[in-house]
């Protein structure tokens, strides 16, 4: 049976400030969805909320995988259920070798009930698999011995995210601006990598400003986010339109959200002013 990642009427606040205001979205295994929208519309908030970042508070609505609610699960439990986020800004973990990290990760993802200290997948088997995957993604196997993201270039970090995606084989992958900050060669490498990996077993949600990643991974669905809501859903042609023409037409079609977007922008500055005043109002 095809599994689905189902988001229903999701409201999310960060430090008390509402960011998402009722997002609904369903991604099935085998589907590619693009999520687009101007800066500050809530795309990354959705990504972090999906994986369980403690800073993002769900005030209403639900996230489910295959009918199992995720709201109360931590990031580790969600990952073990098959959810993966390729980070926009991958984190450096000093002194932790890529291979060691991935061996732990893979063992946990494949045996979701594993407790710390229980056996890892056999070294020989793991090494073989890692080597094969690195070859396939055109990565130097020397990377396996380096410390995770330490001293990596922007492109190397993004490729490392794709390698992790490839090794962990999640059911649902969220890619948060995996193509941003890369030169066109690097975008091609990452895009081709993703194309090789996605298939009937993986549902993909691609968050992007650009179109390039989508050329290689043509979405069946394109969603546009504005001021914390998905305001439009279309097919790949919508992604092309947004890429060519920007969001002005979208704003015209959705004046209410556009007004909210403008209010948020000025509200942020007035918010800053307000906190400076005495609280006894």
């Amino acid at each position, binding site marked *: 049976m095809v599994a689905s990642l189902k988001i229903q009427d999701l409201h999310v606040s960060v430090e008390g400030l509402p960011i998402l205001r009722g997002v609904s979205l369903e991604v099935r295994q085998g589907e590619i969805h693009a999520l687009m929208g101007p800066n500050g519309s809530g795309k990354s908030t959705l990504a972090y909320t999906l994986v369980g970042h*403690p800073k993002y508070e769900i005030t209403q609505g639900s996230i489910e995988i295959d009918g199992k609610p995720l709201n109360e699960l931590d990031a*580790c439990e969600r990952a073990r259920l098959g959810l993966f986020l390729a980070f926009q800004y991958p984190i450096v*973990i000093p002194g*932790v070798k890529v291979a060691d*990290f991935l061996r*732990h990760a893979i063992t*946990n993802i494949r045996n979701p009930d594993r407790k710390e200290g229980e056996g890892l997948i056999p070294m020989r088997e793991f090494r073989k698999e890692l080597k094969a995957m690195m070859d396939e993604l055109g990565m130097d196997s020397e990377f396996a011995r380096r410390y995770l993201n330490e001293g990596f270039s922007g492109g190397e970090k993004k490729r490392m995210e794709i390698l992790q995606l490839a090794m962990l084989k999640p059911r649902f992958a969220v890619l948060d601006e995996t193509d941003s900050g890369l030169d066109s060669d690097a975008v091609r490498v990452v895009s081709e990598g993703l194309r090789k990996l996605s298939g009937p077993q993986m549902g993909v949600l691609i968050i992007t400003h650009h179109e390039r990643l989508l050329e290689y991974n043509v979405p069946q669905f394109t969603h546009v986010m504005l001021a914390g809501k998905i305001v439009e859903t279309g097919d790949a042609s919508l992604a092309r339109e947004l890429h060519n023409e920007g969001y002005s037409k979208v704003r015209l079609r959705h004046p209410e959200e556009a007004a909210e977007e403008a209010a948020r922008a000025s509200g942020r500055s007035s918010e800053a002013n307000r906190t400076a005043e005495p609280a006894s109002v």
Partner: protein
Amino acid sequence: MSTAIASSSAAGFSQEVFEHFLSSRHEPAWVSELRREAFAKYTEFLEQPLDPEEWKRIDLRALKPSQFHLVTTQAATEASAASGLEANADPAIGTLLADRAEFAGRVIHVDGQSAISELSEELAARGVVFGSLTQLIQTHGDLLKPYLMKRAVKHDQDRMSAWHAAFWTGGTVLYVPRNVRVEAPLYGLVALAKDKAADFSHTLVILEDGAEATLLEETTSLHATHAGLHVGGVELLLGQEARLRYVQLQNWNHRTWHLATQAGHVEKDGFLQWTVGGLGSRLAHTHQDVSLDGRGAVAQVNGVTFAINRQVISYYTQQTHRAPDTRSDLLYKDVLRDESRVIWRGMIDVEKGAPRTDGYQRNDSLLLSTTARADAIPGLEIETDDVRCTHGATVGEVDQDQILYCMCRGLSRHEAMHMIVEGFFQQVYDRIPVPAVQETLSQAVERKLGLGRDT
């Protein structure tokens, strides 16, 4: 065993106890003389405050020396060695290093008494001496006399060194003759067994010109709840072009006081790699001096410290450059949890005759609890031109973004923490090319992460 207890000396370190102790030792006159001088100094130092520069951050009020006693009979040791080492009741305590490598020799002390002393015949035939100081002072007195507490740890340095020099017991000697290279590591274990026993072990390593060796030492308590006192001394003396790798892993139980005076001297083109592991003890203070005495001498100093609960672990390190073209490189890494405290006060001294010195010191602390506290105080004292001296210190908490990232890859919070802590120490491990030591420290870290209170 009962006779052993009956013939143990009385508790404390009074004149009377000292005289009794001295008469039980049957040592050559020059050794007794050294002890007498040291005891006189100790008495003097007791009247004076400890150097505030070194001690002001350390509270010794709860330490009552009069509660502790030196064990003076061989029988006591054999009994505890047999009962303690073989059938170690508490798996959290005990040796970390013992089974990890093929050692060319072993020296084991329990309660300041030699229990096991062995060296491969091959090394003995090449003139290597490795064994108990107490025994070797009788058989190799002429060899040891010019070195023992003459060049590195001096009895008149301060209260701790005088106390140690007056009452040293047991002890380990490693002597490697000129141009002899010992490939396999040697192993020393210093254990405390009896409740309120004192260990005053002294490690003396002498490498003649061109000699090479690796000595791995660890300290441990055979019982988790027995109180203990260690007032120790370490002397590392390297001749020209000698190379020594020395590791001391301090892993006493949490009821043991660890007060150590340690010093290494490196002659021309010699290389000393000195690694300190601070895991155990209730309160530990290590005074560690590295002195680069000959042109081109190099010392690398590494520290791995992991403090939990209410442990206090303190280091006072000194890198002294006395000759031109010398290099010292110190890297201490500490992880702290609960209400523990780690103090590092480090100094690089460059004397007048040491141009083109390259001195480096760095201390990084990682706090796993907001209630833990790390103090790092680096310092430089430079009396010559044309030197390069750098120092740095960082104190920080575990990065929550790192934790989240690991968890997003299926690691539990605890596993993520473990990985980040291991990674934090990795930079030090990378400098120690002895697999047994890396594995030992790594396993010790693993144990410690599971011990104590949950974060």
